[in-house]
């Protein structure tokens, strides 16, 4: 068993690289899901996804790596954003309606209230919760947000801080992108929409470069703590001269030494990344398939006009979809940050590698995102083994893309409604 070869490579190598590919593919599925969801909801292929990943990962880095006292403006800005978002989010409505309901005192409001109360009294059996649902939502929501704000400014749990910062930040970015670039283009031709996502990518790239600079940033969750270098001074104290970043934590081994000759190693960051990706993927799929929000989103994706005519608030739903996808991108970016480093060369590139995965799976298919992502991950690692490292990174996924385009343009699970020539 141990000396068996497959096309000139030892069996253990092939298995090792396949498993690594599978783990990498987990991340790709999450990225692919984001692109598929946007494509279903807005009908746009989101070329800016890589930059959304990058900015999400950097937000995580910002709040994970730096204590809040170092960055007052960022934190205060964030808290303001949290407050605005929470008010809008709890109400699920526009600021104008909030104003009318809670602050304006015109006759219409009184009318609406009396109508509501008369209807409720007609129904007779009205529970306490139903009567006071606005107040209860407000109280519960406020408590939740206060807890979140506390977690956000505390110093002891950096991961929680990073998660909250990235979550809120990416949500905001998703909403901003949808409101100011995608919504004005509803009904425009395909080229315009594609170019708009490219323009959004440029804008995010510039913003990132201005705020965070060119430097690569690593999220040190899966690293040993850095060692502090110091030199002893004559008076017995020490002077700190710098820090050396710690090495990566050891990989998880699978005990296969007895029959393959070597242990299969699961790299720690990749394994956790795979776990988190699958978890996030599962959460979003459950959300899509089994909740009323998911039903509304799927209806909107199917036919916007029809969805609007049965009373769904399509524009709000599109905003929700973009916010969700921005969060997904943020998760993927953070995972990439822990696996290697966040730099302008690596992270947006991952999204470019995932485009073939999306097309392979089919543009409209969630299953396709899963399968396509895993396949591209495995293809990439195996071509790294069989051809060269460079081939795996740059070319292999795109060769798959060309093959897919030539032989099965709709992908494995996509709908067969492509305009063939």
């Amino acid at each position, binding site marked *: 068993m141990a000396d068996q070869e497959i096309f000139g490579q030892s069996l253990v190598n092939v298995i090792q690289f396949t498993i690594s590919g599978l783990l990498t593919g987990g991340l790709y599925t999450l990225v692919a899901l984001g692109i598929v969801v946007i494509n279903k909801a807005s009908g746009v*292929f989101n070329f800016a996804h890589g930059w959304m990943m990058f900015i999400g990962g950097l937000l995580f880095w910002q709040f994970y790596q*730096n204590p809040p006292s*170092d*960055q*007052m*403006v*960022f934190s205060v800005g964030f808290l303001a954003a949290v407050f605005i978002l929470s008010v809008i989010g709890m109400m699920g409505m526009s600021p104008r309606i909030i104003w009318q309901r809670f602050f304006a005192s015109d006759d219409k409001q009184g009318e609406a209230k009396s109508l509501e109360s008369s209807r409720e009294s007609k129904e007779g059996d009205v529970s306490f919760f139903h009567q006071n649902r606005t107040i209860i939502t407000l109280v519960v929501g406020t408590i939740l947000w206060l807890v979140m704000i506390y977690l956000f400014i505390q110093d002891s749990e950096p991961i929680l801080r990073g998660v909250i910062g990235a979550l809120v930040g990416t949500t905001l970015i998703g909403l901003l992108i949808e409101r100011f*670039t995608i919504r*004005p*283009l509803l009904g*425009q031709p*395909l*080229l*315009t929409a*594609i*170019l*708009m996502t*490219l*323009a*959004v*990518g*440029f*804008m*995010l*790239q*510039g*913003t*990132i*470069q*201005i*705020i*965070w*600079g*060119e430097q690569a940033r690593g999220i040190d969750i899966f690293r040993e703590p850095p060692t502090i270098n110091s030199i002893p001074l004559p008076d017995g104290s020490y002077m700190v001269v710098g820090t050396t970043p710690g090495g990566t934590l050891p990989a998880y081994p699978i005990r296969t030494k007895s029959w393959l000759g070597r242990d299969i190693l699961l790299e720690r960051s990749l394994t956790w990344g795979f776990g988190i990706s699958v978890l996030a993927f599962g959460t979003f799929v459950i959300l899509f398939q089994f909740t009323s929000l998911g039903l509304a989103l799927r209806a909107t994706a199917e036919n916007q006009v029809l969805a609007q005519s049965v009373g769904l608030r399509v524009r709000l739903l599109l905003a929700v979809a973009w916010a969700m996808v921005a969060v997904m991108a943020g998760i993927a970016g953070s995972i990439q940050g822990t696996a290697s480093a966040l730099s302008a060369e690596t992270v947006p590139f991952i999204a*470019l590698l995932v*485009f073939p995965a999306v*097309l392979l799976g089919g543009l409209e298919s969630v299953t396709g995102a899963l399968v396509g992502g895993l396949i591209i991950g495995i293809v990439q690692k195996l071509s790294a083994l069989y051809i*060269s490292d*460079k*081939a795996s990174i*740059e*070319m292999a996924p*795109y*060769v798959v*893309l*060309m093959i897919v*385009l*030539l032989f099965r*343009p709709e992908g494995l699970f996509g709908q067969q409604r*492509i*305009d*063939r*020539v």
Partner: protein
Amino acid sequence: MRPSGVYSTDYIEDQAIWRTRVDYFWTVFFAVVALSLPLFSASGVFGELGVRFVPETLLGILTDGGILLISIVGLNLLLGYTGQISLGQAAFMMVGAYSSAVLTRQASIPFIFALPIAAVVTGLVGLVFGLASLRVKGFYLAMATLAAQFIIPWAISSYRGDFVRLGGDTGLTVDPARILGIELNTNLEEYYLVLVVAIVMWILARNMVRTRLGRAWIAIRDNDLAAEQLGINVFRYKVLAFFMSAIYAGVAGGLLAHVRRTISPAAFDITESIEMLGMLVIGGAGFPLGPLFGVAFFLFIERWFIDFARDILIDILPSILTFREREALEASLLAGLPPLLFGSFLAIFLIFQPRGLAYRWMIIQAAWRLRPFSKA
């Protein structure tokens, strides 16, 4: 600018390049300006006599702009007239640059022949990726050209054979262009080289879209099913559009190689392709003047507006981004402002003027023609 009262009575008149004597005058005027501009630089004839109001750097900028213009004119044939999206123009430029470099230095073919050969080689490569339009169209075709953008640089940078030397990741140094024994290596000579080629290529493109070929392309863009019913071989004309567009990219790439003197795979990445696409859309896809407006606008942002924006931001940002040092922030601004501004302007154009500057120019022209009865 066409005054009121000029009507075309047949197709030839309608399509004429110089419809009135005023058109002719303006063409001659701009040609004279473009041709005499470098004479007033430091190395020009008048410059040596002391009249030098044209800085050398401006000539360099215009040369770069001219190369971009050639490539974008090619993209315009594909996107503006045939309606096919290409995300791989920079990769095709790369093929042209490498072919021309290899042909002049390693095969010792004179530049004047090497450039057309390089263009044809690029055209053939473009043809291969254009074959994807046999199967798919629209967005899927864009993805196929994106594949070109990845496969071509990979192939060139990882080629290790003995037949030619391609230099891998580090790239090649290129000889300056040499025509009839004269080496073109000053700003002034390069400017004239690019200017002449750009004018020839522009006129060629203008004529292509006025003939049967261009009409077939426009028919395909407007409605490919109807075009097929009219007897146009849709696939053949689409592939021809890819071929032509790649030829333009090849010429631009060849000129770029001989003007910059060094080429490497990193100079032709996907950002360049997208920027060219963006410039075309800002300028106006499907209009003869579109590429010109796009390049002019791009140079305007890149060379002038950026300094303006940086001067404003450098005073504001340090107080917001307190965790960055000022020097590092200045460097980041230098790197981050071009994509930010370009993206913002592209977005603004897509929302408020999706048909580009050339369309706005047409509206202005129409308003002029209908004066005093126009409202625009």
